[in-house]
């Protein structure tokens, strides 16, 4: 895990190395100053040597200046290294997520990925900065101060050794469970936030069922749990400071007593005693720092784990080694294809599918909820890989193609489609970055979107809100179709993409397809008979298997499922969206 993360320090290695160096320089200066101070008192003040006082003072000034420089540089580089590390981590995660296959995407929730890229990275960033600035500084400062005290007086210095050992043992004992508690805290915290998110988006359900009080009491319970865990975790933390004080005070008393005796016995000077007392703070502060760094690292470990999880997730779909960049035509073949989303599930989602579609054909797919229509078409553009059997496009196994080439030729309009914030033109150009405005308009005319776009005040420059919330469902679907058309694909797949479009417009779109892009293979999944009845062939899906393939006329006569759907729908012909809705 550390290795995974460490790779991303790249580009900020210089800063990462310089920060501790400068911090060490700062520590050296901090150690020198009390030493000079002691000399100033003993050699200067006590002997009335004003010259010595001033020279020592100047030396101290110089040390302070160097310390200042080192401290500032350490601060600058530390900030840069950690911010840079965080930047690299975010980018690396984002880049890796971009390589995710559909199967990978299914594994993570949006909220989970967002937290990993924001909160978790911030935790790691803070911890890293702390490590760079304190991890070397604190132990080094400890060693320096200890050395100095031993130089001054080894006997007295042993007092510190005792207190350090005491403090170390107590801290380890206290903090050993803290990390465990904090991991629990973070988990509970995630849950709490998830429940808030749920409530915000489902507020209509909550209100419709008058469940406000129920939700509030549920939330209060969760908040109380979090409170209890937090208190438990922090209780251990708060005893650190008093124990620190106890040790400091204990050392001061011990040193005062022993020191006084030694001064009387002429083993020690008063200046040396003062220095000893000054180092006392240094030593114990560095110890405390070590403890804080220790806590921070353990706290950020949970975050680091979550980040490296994303970074190490490798795409379940790999580009072949010598990819084929040429898709000859829009023919599709399924040979004994079976598919399931996870290797552990017993019943495959698709079972032994055999199918052959000629280039340029129009194919309708119809079937009940959960009959695997979508799963079937997702294999064509290699959004998932078949578990067994071969899917061929243009006569070649889809796994031999370059993924980008394949997906450019196989354009899918997904069931849960998404528009992105930006103008209509921006959104359309997802299909083809270099499309001219004329080409975009042309595509929108084909998908019957031009009319309503023209009615907007800003026309093609109308701003679409995130998720396309400011256009209606039917409008969104037509924009998505136009976007897919701009790819000029060899195969176009519409996965229930006109469900919110009225029948008349639906027919118009299909007509346009027939006349304007006759050579493109068109696959249309629909619940509506009218959307598929004119197709060259209609596939009836049932329970992961192909129930029948045929034309409308054939199926109406011979297939029970089709007949039943047909009768249910022709009695109530089509639906009620009027033509050219706004």
């Amino acid at each position, binding site marked *: 895990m550390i290795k995974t993360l460490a790779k991303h320090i790249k580009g900020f290695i210089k800063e990462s190395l310089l920060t501790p160096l400068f911090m060490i320089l700062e520590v050296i200066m901090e150690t020198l100053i009390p030493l000079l101070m002691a000399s100033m008192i003993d050699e200067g003040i006590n002997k009335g040597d004003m010259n010595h006082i001033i020279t020592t003072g100047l030396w*101290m000034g110089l040390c302070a200046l160097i310390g200042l420089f080192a401290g500032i540089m350490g601060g*600058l580089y530390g900030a840069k290294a950690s911010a840079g590390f965080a930047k690299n981590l975010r980018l690396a995660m984002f880049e890796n997520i971009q390589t995710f296959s559909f199967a990978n995407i299914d594994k993570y929730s949006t909220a989970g*990925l967002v937290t990993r890229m924001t909160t978790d990275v911030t935790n790691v960033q803070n911890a890293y900065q702390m490590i760079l600035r304190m991890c070397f500084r604190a132990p080094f400062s400890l060693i320096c101060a200890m050395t100095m005290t031993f130089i001054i007086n080894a006997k007295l210095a042993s007092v510190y050794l005792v207190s350090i050992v005491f403090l170390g043992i107590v801290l380890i004992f206290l903090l050993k469970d803290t990390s465990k508690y904090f991991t629990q805290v973070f988990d509970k915290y995630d849950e709490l936030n998830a429940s808030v998110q749920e409530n915000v988006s489902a507020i209509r359900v909550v209100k419709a069922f008058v469940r406000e009080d129920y939700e509030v009491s549920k939330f209060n319970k969760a908040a109380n749990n979090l409170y209890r865990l937090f208190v438990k975790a*922090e209780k251990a933390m708060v005893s650190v400071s008093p124990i620190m*004080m106890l040790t400091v005070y204990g050392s001061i008393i011990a040193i005062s007593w022993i020191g006084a005796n030694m001064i009387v016995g002429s083993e020690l000077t008063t200046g040396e005693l003062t220095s000893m007392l000054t180092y006392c703070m240094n030593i114990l502060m560095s110890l405390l720092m070590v403890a804080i760094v220790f806590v921070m690292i353990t706290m950020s470990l949970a975050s680091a784990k979550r980040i490296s999880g994303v970074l190490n997730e490798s795409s379940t779909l790999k580009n072949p080694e010598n990819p084929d960049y040429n898709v000859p035509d829009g023919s599709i073949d399924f040979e004994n294809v079976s598919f399931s989303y996870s290797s552990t599930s017993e019943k495959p989602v698709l079972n032994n599918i055999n199918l052959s579609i000629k280039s340029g054909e129009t194919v309708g797919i119809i079937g009940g909820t959960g009959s695997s229509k979508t799963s079937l078409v997702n294999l064509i553009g290699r959004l998932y890989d078949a578990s067994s059997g071969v899917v061929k496009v243009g006569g070649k196994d889809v796994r031999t193609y370059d993924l980008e080439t394949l*997906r450019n030729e196989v354009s899918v309009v997904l*069931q849960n489609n998404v528009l992105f914030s930006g103008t209509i033109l921006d959104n359309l150009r997802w299909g083809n970055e270099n499309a001219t405005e004329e080409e975009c308009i042309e595509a929108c005319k084909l998908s019957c979107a031009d009319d309503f776009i023209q009615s907007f005040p800003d026309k093609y420059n109308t701003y679409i809100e995130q998720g396309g919330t400011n256009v209606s469902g039917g409008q969104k679907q037509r924009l998505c179709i136009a976007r897919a058309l701009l790819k000029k694909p060899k195969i176009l797949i519409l996965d229930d993409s006109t469900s919110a479009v009225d029948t008349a417009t639906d027919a118009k779109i299909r007509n346009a397809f027939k006349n304007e892009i006759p050579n493109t293979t068109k696959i249309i999944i629909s619940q509506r008979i009218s959307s598929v009845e004119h197709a060259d062939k209609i596939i009836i899906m049932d329970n992961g298997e192909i129930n029948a393939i045929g034309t409308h006329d054939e199926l109406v006569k011979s297939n029970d499922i089709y007949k039943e759907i047909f009768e249910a729908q022709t009695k109530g012909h089509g639906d009620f969206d009027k033509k050219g809705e706004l």
Partner: protein
Amino acid sequence: MKGPMRNNKAVGKKVENPMKVFKRLLGIIFKKHKLQIIVVFICIFISVFANVQGTLFIQRLIDDYIEPLIGTPNPDFTPLLLAIGKVAVFYLLGVISTYAYSRIMVYVTQGTMRDLRCDIFSHMESLPIKYFDTHKHGDIMSVYTNDVDTLRQMISQSLVQVFSSVITIISVIASMIFLSIPLTILTLVIVFIMLLISRKLAGKSGKYFLAQQIDLGTENGYIEEMMNGQKVVKVFNHEKKNIEDFKKLNDKLFHSSYNANKFANIIMPINAQIGNVSYVLCAIVGGLLALSNFAGFTLGMLVSFLTFNKNFTQPINQVSQQFNSIIMALAGAERIFDLLDEKSEEDNGYVTLVNAKKENGKLVETKEHTGLWAWKHVHQATGEVEYKELEGALVMDDVDFGYSDDKMVLHNIKLYADPGQKIAFVGSTGAGKTTITNLINRFYDIQDGKIRYDGININKIKKSDLRRSLGIVLQDTHLFTGTVMDNIRYGKLDATDEEVIAAAKLANADTFIRQLPEGYNTILKSDGGNLSQGQRQMLAIARAAVADPPALILDEATSSIDTRTEKIVQDSMDKLMKGRTTFVIAHRLSTVMNSDCIMVLEHGRIIERGTHDQLIEQKGKYYQLYTGKTA
């Protein structure tokens, strides 16, 4: 067309009235923890006092106890021992009180945060639907996460540190003045410079910290949008372009984060070294004073003064370290207060819904569920109680409505639904179908006209009772984290397992639920992520069915269910709702055909109404849509 209502006002705004926000925040902390806070203050006071005593002891240690012993043949250690004993007591007191206040502050901090979270949540639940429709969900969420979090450091550390620093500073100044006035002035001048520099740097870093929050928010939004649409990204090979866009945002965040930390980082070394310089200057000046024996200034006093000098710069350094967390906490608190100040949904209704039974032909209120419901109308003037059977008659009289006052969506809606009827709304997207249902259960209030439910103006009915009388299956299905069983039971919290299963069977969901890994105990996560749209709708229908509501609204409730399954579901729903009023909004003709009355909506007006046969007879819009012929 960028909606003015959807302004992203969340992160990074400058706090408009910091003092007011600060005062209110303190008020909240104090209100529930008055006693604790007083104890904390006393403890801090004791702890600081003990610390000062310790420092004074070091002064006396050399001058009063050690110097006299030097050179004496038989030194008497008793006074020294006594002094050490005395200071040990002070030290112990300091340690105990530090532990006490730190421990109490954990409860105060976490308690305040818990209370705030609960307050925010329960207030949020009381807000009108309009609030949720006009605020980005990400922004609301960030109040719970980012904003409440900023308070943690401020309450637990900044408050205590600032308070103890102030006491320390005051007591140290007093002690310093006692030792030497000239040196005190020197120290104060240097500290003043230190404060000036800190303020400048803290201001700079504060600015960048706010910028960092804005950039983080923007990047957060971008990530969220792209992660949501990741499958579309894949289908369109848009990965490279995304990475480019992301890089730009990421570099911006790097820049602000670097700068924010940079300025925060250099405050400490600068202050520390200025502190050292102050130390050196005092040493030199003090040395000169001591050597010339100015005003009885001794070496021991100098040593003691230097300790005070060090002790003095430390709290100041600490306070300046807290600046950033205070700035961020105030920005967070302001957004929390914005939410808490949002106006709750108003409810002046007084007519309530009660279970009833008939005794001698008269309606009597009862506790148990009878399947018979009555409106309990307490006349405000006379206090007379009147019961009226809930029948589900709905009348809309000349209703006008718009989501904002300047843009009306519905005009002159006149509608009457007799008890037990099935009323359907049809019309193109945006014609106002869903809006009408939003009005019936008062998610929104109408601008003009009247809506009467069983002859009672719905404004007089208590909102919760009104909504309880109306089961609703919404266009967008939302499920909650929990088992399938829990999700269906949401409609009626005390439903038995058998009732839940019966409801699932009614919605035709039983079969697929049993195929899930744990059947009814399968835990659904992230809004039922792995279920298909159709399956989710079936669960939503089961949820409404288990509530066994007196009246029902189905808003495109079966749109993603295939026609065959829909028919099965519909038949059982019809059976359940027999004799009760049902409102149906649908696209598909098969869904609405057997309704008692079909309303055709266009541009927010009802243009036709009647049964299927009547409307066909009329040869109007419905006929035109139905046959596909342009008349």
